[in-house]
């Protein structure tokens, strides 16, 4: 479980933006917090899964995919901003994310 610092917040944002720019072949400066991942970028669930794996490795997270899935059912992610918020919660709470309900 990590304390979210400004550095982590910046790092997560950069990783997410660069990841989708690369995967969806768009300029990074066209992506913003309100960009819709599936409708506007053509993203898919495998990209979402890949991003989770990137963060799991980067921050040595102890979290099961199905825990994230259960959280996502209650808090669906549509935009880049929502995805970043969710990643921050995953980094902060790991497997206890379900106990942290908005």
């Amino acid at each position, binding site marked *: 479980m990590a304390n979210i610092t400004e550095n982590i917040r910046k790092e997560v944002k950069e990783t997410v933006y660069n990841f989708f720019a690369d995967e969806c072949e768009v300029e990074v400066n066209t992506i913003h917090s309100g960009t819709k991942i599936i409708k506007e970028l053509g993203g*898919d*669930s*495998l990209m*979402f*899964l*890949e991003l989770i*794996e990137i963060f799991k490795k980067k921050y040595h997270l102890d979290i*099961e*995919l*199905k*825990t*994230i*899935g*259960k959280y*996502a*059912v209650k808090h669906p992610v549509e935009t880049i901003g929502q995805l970043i918020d969710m990643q921050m919660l995953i980094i902060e709470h790991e497997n206890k994310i379900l106990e942290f309900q908005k």
Partner: protein
Amino acid sequence: MTKHTQSAFIFPAFINEYPENPFNGSQELQARFQYLLTEASLIIDHDLADFDFISNDFLRDELKTQYLTYIYSCAAADILSEKKIIPSYSAGYSMGIYAALVHAKVVTFGDGLLLIKNAYETIRNIVQDKKYGMCSIIGLSRNDITGLITSLNLHVEITNQNSNFAFVISGLHCDILTLLEVAKAEGALHTHLLNVSLPYHSDYLKETKPAFFDFIETIRFANPQTKLISLVDQQIFSDRADIKEEVIKNLFTPLNWFHTQSELLRTGVNLFIECGLGKNLAKNSKFIEGDYKFSNACDYIKNLNCLL
């Protein structure tokens, strides 16, 4: 020092939607596809002659979609062969097995079409009016999915594993719908009902064996000119008798793509070329660890042309 490249051609299953740019600017691939399309229309189905990716929609027709997938795969492999890209291995994912057989010169292009048609009709005769389906589930483990199937006594089974957390399931349509619902509640990140009405690779199709066996006996099989790997048990084939058996088993036996790619990596393959319309296996490869590249045939041909 240049790293030695050992490649594998992968022939994927049929797709649920056409790509926006199926030839990616490759006129030679488009021309080869059109040529084989015309040939196929004369051999198997006249409707194929009028197909184009923009105006026609064969996606609602499972058999025609299989023909198109097969024709495109054969065309892509032909162009790669013309450019002297010779794989060490090839693998047919699901119905991709027929294009893999043609590429390895086990059967002719025309006989590949006949195999697809007969396999489809044999399966249809077995299932008759029972409603079946298939789905994919991403984000749960095999144990999680098996647990759900067992606890609810669903008439479905896992029929392919794409990675540690990506599975394909076949079975009774109503039970597939139930599984999708409970899988989502269990924490699946993504669930998807596939656009098919038959339970491919499942035990429900075991009765296809005698009829398909009889048909296979009418087709001339040669020994492969490229080593073929089984998606059922990852055995490497060099004998036509074993391949015949595999083609029959392919209809009613679960596959394991994850184990197949892992086995190819173990043998030293470091370049995979997906000879098909989509990029699904290339995308999936990101979840299979190893030092290798995975490219779509169309992109690979484009890059080759840029180098020439």
